[in-house]
């Protein structure tokens, strides 16, 4: 069943001093079904961060529509957009974006606090999620006391705690060492198996090869896409590399 639908989205930035327009996205169309695990790949400057910001309602498209379960997100008011982000989306960022002044536990609870959940409900929710992400022992620690991998798992827990419809991950492995990165990708695969829809933006072939589908963006357009199907991760890796080479050398698809 279709969860997210992006229809002919276009984004043009106008520089402050009048003058030139920069086209970040020219025409993007794709859709994501419930329970999918999709990676979006592209070189820097290809428009993938712009796309993610628009999906996250942090930015608005110049043209086109974005529908989540048939409801249009394009022009939500600031207040509604904040509520939407909090309740429907879970975020995982490259640089974790944890608050140093909150303990791991409080960082995870942040979206619940902002939504005004009662205290006992918060405690009930945090336990299973912390156990699933192997951070139960770290709950009372502060972000500056734990490793990068642990920080990112804390961020994932924060993203999951509202039971969001969609997890948006922006280069989630970018700041991690290879071991922690693998561990995180396993976690994504695991939560996806449990039915969680995941959309990840990355330029790491390794990370993308874990996804069930990979979209390639070039010059603000969807250039190509790959389904993993029954292929192994190694095969998928090889195929992604081929597409990337084709993009880089300007070859035909």
């Amino acid at each position, binding site marked *: 069943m279709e969860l997210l639908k992006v229809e002919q989205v276009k984004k043009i930035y106008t520089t402050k001093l009048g003058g030139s327009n920069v086209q970040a996205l020219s025409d993007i169309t794709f859709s994501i079904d419930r329970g999918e695990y999709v990676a979006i790949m592209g070189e820097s400057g290809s428009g993938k961060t712009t796309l993610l910001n628009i999906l*996250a309602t*942090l930015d608005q498209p110049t043209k086109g529509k974005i529908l989540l379960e048939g409801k249009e997100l394009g022009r939500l008011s*600031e*207040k509604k*957009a*904040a*509520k*939407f*982000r*909090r*309740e429907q*989306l879970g*975020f995982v*960022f490259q640089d974790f*974006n*944890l*608050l*140093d*002044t*909150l303990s791991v536990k*409080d960082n995870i*609870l*942040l*979206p619940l*606090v*902002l939504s*005004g959940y009662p*205290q006992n409900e*918060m405690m009930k929710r945090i336990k299973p999620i912390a156990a699933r992400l192997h951070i139960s022992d770290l709950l009372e620690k*502060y*972000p*500056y006391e734990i490793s990068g991998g642990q920080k990112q798992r804390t961020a994932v827990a*924060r993203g999951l705690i509202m039971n969001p419809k969609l997890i948006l991950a922006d280069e989630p492995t970018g700041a991690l060492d290879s071991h922690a990165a693998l561990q995180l990708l396993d976690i994504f695969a695991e939560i996806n198996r449990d039915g969680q829809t995941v959309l990840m933006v990355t330029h790491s072939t390794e990370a993308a090869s874990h996804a069930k589908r990979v979209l390639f963006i070039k010059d603000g357009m969807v250039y190509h896409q790959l389904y993993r199907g029954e292929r192994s991760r190694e095969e998928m890796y090889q195929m992604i590399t081929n597409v990337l080479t084709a993009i880089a050398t300007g070859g035909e698809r």
Partner: protein
Amino acid sequence: MKALYKKLAIQNLTKNRTVYIPYIMAQTLMVALFYDLLFLEGNKKILYLPGGETIQQTLAYGGLLMGVFVMIFLFYVNSVLIKQRKKEFGLYRVLGMEHRHLKKVIFYETSIANAVSFVLGIISGIVFSGLMYMILLKILGEKAALAFGISGEAIWYTLLQFGFLFLVVLLYNYRQLKKVNLRELLQEHAQGDREPKTKKGLMIFGIICLIIGYGIALVVRNIFASLIWFFVAAIFVIIGTYALFTAGSIIFLKKIKEDKEKYYTPRYFTAVSGLLHRMKRNAAGLAGICILSTMILVTCAMSVSVFFGQQHAIRTIFPSDIIVTMSGTSDPQQDIEYIKGQAEKAAQQTGISVKEVKLSDLSEVEKSMTLVEGTQNVQIELSGSDEEKYECSTRLELNTEDGSYTYQSAHFISKQSPQEGAQSIRATYGGFLFLGIFLGAMFMVATVLMIYYKQISEGYEDRQRYVIMKKVGMNDEEVRESIQTQVLLVFFLPLVMAAVHILAALKIMVQICGILSIGFGTVFLCTIGTVLVFSLIYKGVYKQTAKVYYTIVDQQ
């Protein structure tokens, strides 16, 4: 090459204008105030006014006090500014500037900032000196005349004071440059402040200091010891305030945090956790704001009391329209009859009537000041306006020999009317009031500046946190609410504390004002009034800085 350093210096100042403009403005104002004080202190016209000498002495004392305070305060502000910019200096070093080059840039920066504020300060000082002169005359009850003048001497002394400050600041800034550690600077300071530990001992120490300070303020009985004890109590209270803010604020915030129902709400959650983590560095600033506020309140409350208590004081010292003091009288009744006769004559000439003539005891103050044994006062009450009474008093003739009034057995020592005495009282009291306004204004500038810097630096620190929270789904309104809670706590804790300090100081203030014959009621009402007015101003400052804070946090 020289031009480059100059250009860099100007560029740095404009780039850091959010912090340098308030600094330069504050210094300008202090230069202006300092110049005006010196101008009035050395003004010949004031010296020849009745009581002018007293006033100028008071102003000289105030000038000394102000000089010391200005030095300490501006030095402190500069040190805060320069420390914030360490990273910038580190970057210049990495880009290939040598230590001596940076020194030159710093030299130009400090020179420009100081020269600009000095010139602007002197100019506004000269412009406002006329106004100050008028206010002073008005307070003295003289006919106000606008006088315009420039005092070379005052400029010279102001230059000396601020030139010295410039040197000290420059040397300090050089020292800070030397301390720049490149490796440390270039590493991201990702490590946040740890959650501070609860320091129960320090809090108890603070409470004890406060109790001692308050105790002294409440127990002292001797009027003349009041002044000295006031300072002793003040020192205890200052130490106590610092200790209490350092330890108490953390304990207070942890209490909120422990109350889970309260803590886990959008209003408190981020604000309390954020405050808690930076309280270690913040507490000193808060205590400083608290103490400055107390200083403003005490100075203003006393000055206002003196001003409003003036009429009452004149009435206390001169309880009737004319007082004739006599000594060595053997038949008081006969002397009184004589005085009454003379007074009626004088009253008739003026066109008014005598209401009552009676013998009275000396007041406590008079007893301590009179040297002649067996002195008695005769009070004469008149009907009519103040001018008529004064006229009558000058017309009253008593037989005198050798400058003292004699009649039969009695020596009349003096004849006084409130109108005559008022002049010397106005000189003394007016001097206090004027100085109070001056010092109050200066402390106010200092407080506002401190609050402003606090908000700015916190705004920059908090920006990243609010960016994250917005991404996670906090809307603008919630951000505003959270900021409000935070700023409110930071602002009103010192104000409440200052109000408590004032309450404890009230008794000693009443005693000191008692020397000037100002009653409890006046001091009490004036203090309440001052606290209310100050709270309003404080609230205005709070609103303004909260706005600045919000703009910083909100910018992308």
